[in-house]
C-alpha cells in the first residue's frame, strides 16, 4: 500500500501540470454540480415555504363581478358574499366534506397608535377557526376565542412586526384604531413576506363597529375526505355553482365567485418543484459527463506520455495487472482528492448564496416569497455525486489503463 502511494505521489509530483489539469476538471465538475443542486434546492425550498404557510386542504372563497347576464340582471354586477353563503357551505350538502368554516371581513388600512407611536396596518375581522386554517403561529398570548366573538370584545391580535415597530411588550397594552381602543391579547409570528401584517379583531366586533351589514369578504374553509384532485375539483365546482345560484348569477359565469383552491395550487407547485428538480439533475449530470470526459481525456494523454516508462517497467518484470492498478489507483486518488476540494468549494458557494440571495425576497404580486430558501445540498447528495465521479473517472481511466497494460513491451520501449 505504502509503495503504491509512493508511486502515485512520485508521478503526481513529477507531472504537476497534468495533475493540476485533471484536478481542475474534476473540481470544476463537482463544484458546478453542487452549486446547481444547491440553487435548485433553494428555489424548491422557497416555493415549499410559501405553500407551507397554508393548510393545503383549504379554499378561500370570495365574491367577484358577474361577466354574464342572468335572471334579468346585467353583467358587471358585484357579488358580495353574505350569511346565506355561509349557511349553504355549513349546510347538509357539504357535511362530512367541509370541515372548518371561517368568515373574514377586512377593514380599511389605517393608522394604529400606541401613545405617540403610530403604524399603518390593515384590520381583519376573524373567528377562532381562522387560526388553524391559516396556520397562524402564536408567539405570545392567545388568538381570538369564541367568547371574544360572542361578546364583541374590543381585543386585537398583532404581529411580531407590529411588536418590533411599536413596543417590546405589547400584550396587555391598549392600542387605538380609528379612535377606538383595543386591548392587545396576543402576538403572532409574521414571516418575511408582507402577507401577514394584519391586525386581527373578533369578527363580530368588526361587523358591529366598522362594517355593519350582511357582507362577508372571504369565507375560508377546510375540507375532509377529499383525497384526490378530481374529488377536490368537483367540490370546488359544486360550491361554486351553489353560491352562484344563491346570488342568481349565470351557472357558467367564471367570474361571479372566486375560489382560491390551495389544494390544486399546491399540486401545481409540487409539479413545478419536480420539474425544477429534474432539470437541475439533468444539468448536473451533463456537467458531470463533461468532467468525466475531461478526466478520461487527460488520462489518455497521460498514458500516452508514459508509454516508454511502462515499457521499462514491463521489461524488468511488471505484470499487466500491476500497470493497470497503478494507473487506476492514480486516477482514483486524483479524482477523489480534487473531487472533495470541488465539493468543499461548492458547499461554501452554497453558503454564500444562502447569505446573499437567500435573504432577498421576490414580489409575485399576490404574494411575496424568498428568492431562495436554504440553497444547500445535503451531505448525502454531495457524497453520492463525488462517489459517482470517482467511479465514472475510474471507468473513463480504465480504457487508457487497459491500453497501457496491453501494449507489448518492445513497442512501448520504442516509444519516446
Amino acid at each position, binding site marked *: 500500500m*505504502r*509503495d503504491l502511494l509512493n508511486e502515485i505521489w*512520485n*508521478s503526481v*509530483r*513529477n507531472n504537476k501540470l497534468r495533475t493540476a489539469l485533471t484536478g481542475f476538471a474534476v473540481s470544476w465538475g463537482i463544484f458546478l454540480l453542487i452549486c446547481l443542486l444547491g440553487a435548485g434546492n433553494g428555489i424548491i425550498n422557497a416555493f415549499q415555504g410559501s405553500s407551507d404557510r397554508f393548510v393545503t386542504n383549504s379554499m378561500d372563497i370570495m365574491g367577484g363581478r358577474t361577466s354574464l347576464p342572468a335572471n334579468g340582471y346585467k353583467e358587471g354586477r358585484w357579488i358580495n358574499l353574505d350569511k346565506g353563503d355561509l349557511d349553504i357551505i355549513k349546510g347538509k350538502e357539504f357535511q362530512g366534506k367541509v370541515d372548518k368554516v371561517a368568515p373574514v371581513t377586512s377593514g380599511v388600512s389605517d393608522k394604529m397608535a400606541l401613545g405617540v407611536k403610530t403604524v399603518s396596518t390593515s384590520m381583519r375581522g376573524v373567528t377562532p377557526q381562522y387560526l388553524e386554517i391559516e396556520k397562524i403561529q402564536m408567539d405570545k398570548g392567545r388568538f381570538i376565542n369564541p367568547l371574544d366573538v360572542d361578546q364583541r370584545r374590543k381585543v386585537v391580535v398583532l404581529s411580531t412586526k407590529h411588536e418590533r415597530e411599536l413596543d417590546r411588550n405589547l400584550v396587555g397594552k391598549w392600542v387605538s384604531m380609528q379612535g377606538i381602543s383595543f386591548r392587545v391579547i396576543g402576538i403572532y409570528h409574521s414571516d418575511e413576506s408582507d402577507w401577514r401584517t394584519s391586525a386581527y379583531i373578533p369578527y363580530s366586533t368588526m361587523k358591529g363597529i366598522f362594517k355593519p351589514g350582511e357582507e362577508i369578504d372571504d369565507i375560508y374553509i377546510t375540507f375532509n375526505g377529499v383525497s384526490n384532485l378530481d374529488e377536490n375539483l368537483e367540490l370546488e365546482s359544486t360550491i361554486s355553482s351553489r353560491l352562484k345560484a344563491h346570488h342568481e348569477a349565470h351557472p357558467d359565469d367564471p367570474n361571479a365567485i372566486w375560489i382560491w383552491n390551495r389544494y390544486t395550487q399546491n399540486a401545481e407547485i409540487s409539479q413545478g418543484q419536480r420539474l425544477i428538480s429534474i432539470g437541475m439533475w439533468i444539468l448536473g449530470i451533463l456537467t458531470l459527463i463533461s468532467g468525466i470526459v475531461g478526466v478520461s481525456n487527460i488520462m489518455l494523454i497521460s498514458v500516452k506520455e508514459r508509454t*516508454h*516508462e511502462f*515499457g*521499462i*517497467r*514491463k*521489461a*524488468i*518484470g*511488471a*505484470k*499487466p*495487472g*500491476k500497470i493497470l492498478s497503478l494507473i487506476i489507483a492514480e486516477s482514483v486518488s486524483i479524482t477523489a482528492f480534487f473531487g472533495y476540494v470541488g465539493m468543499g468549494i461548492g458547499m461554501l458557494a452554497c453558503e454564500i448564496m444562502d447569505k446573499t440571495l437567500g435573504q432577498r425576497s421576490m414580489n409575485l404580486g399576490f404574494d411575496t416569497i424568498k428568492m431562495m430558501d436554504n440553497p444547500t445540498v445535503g451531505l448525502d447528495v454531495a457524497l453520492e455525486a463525488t462517489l459517482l465521479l470517482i467511479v465514472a473517472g475510474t471507468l473513463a481511466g480504465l480504457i487508457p489503463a487497459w491500453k497501457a497494460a496491453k501494449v*507489448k*513491451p*518492445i513497442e512501448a*520501449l520504442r516509444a519516446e
Partner: protein
Amino acid sequence: MALIELRDINKTYNNGQPLHVLKGINLDIERGEFVSIMGASGSGKSTLLNILGILDNYDTGTYHLAGKLIKDLSESQAADYRNRMIGFIFQSFNLIGFKTAVENVELPLFYQGVPRKKRHEMAMEYLEKLGLTQWAKHFPNEMSGGQRQRVAIARALITKPEIILADEPTGALDSKTSVEVMQLLKQLNKEEGITIIVVTHESGVANETNKIIHIKDGIIGQIEENESHSAWDGTMMK
C-alpha cells in the same frame, strides 16, 4: 543441456509486406559464457535479442531458457520470467527519470514483492559494488552516461538473473566510458560467472567478449572463439 537452446527459430513481421527476419536460428549458449552477437542493422540481431529477452515472440521453433520452454506465454508469465531470469542493459539506459538511482535499482525487486527494507538494502549493496553509493539519491539526469549505465547494470544484476542481455550497451557512451563498461561486464563474467550476451554492431565491443556470433540476413553465420581477444587488433573502435 545448454542454458540457452534455440532450435530452428523463425520470425516473420507482417507489416504490409511480410518480412522474414529470422530464418531458422540454431544456437546454444552455455552457463557462464560471455558472448556477443554481431551483425549489421537489419541482420535480425535485435529481433533475436528481443526473443531471447522474452520481449517478443517467435513463429516456429523452440527456445529453452534454463530448461524451460519459452513459448506462447501469457503476458504475466512472460513478465515473471523476465523479472527472475533476465537482466536487461539498454543502449539508452532506460532508467525511469522521476526515480532516484536507488529507486530504479529497487524496481525489479518491487515487482517480485520483496519488502521495502530488504529491497533498499540490496539496492544499496549493488550500487556500492558499482561504486555509486554517493549517487544513490540522485536522479538519472544528474548523472553522466557512464554512471547511468552502471545504475542500469546494478538494476539488471539485482534479481540474480540467469543471463544478462545487453543491447548496444556502449552505443550512447564515449570511448573511454565504453571501455570502462566493457571491462565491468568482463569482470562480472569472470568473477561472478554471470552469463552475458552483448548485441552490437561494433567489432571493437564484440572483441572484448569470449565468443563472437555473426548473424547475417536472419541466419547464424560464423561463430568465432575469441578467448585471446585477438579477432581484431584488440583496441576498441569508435
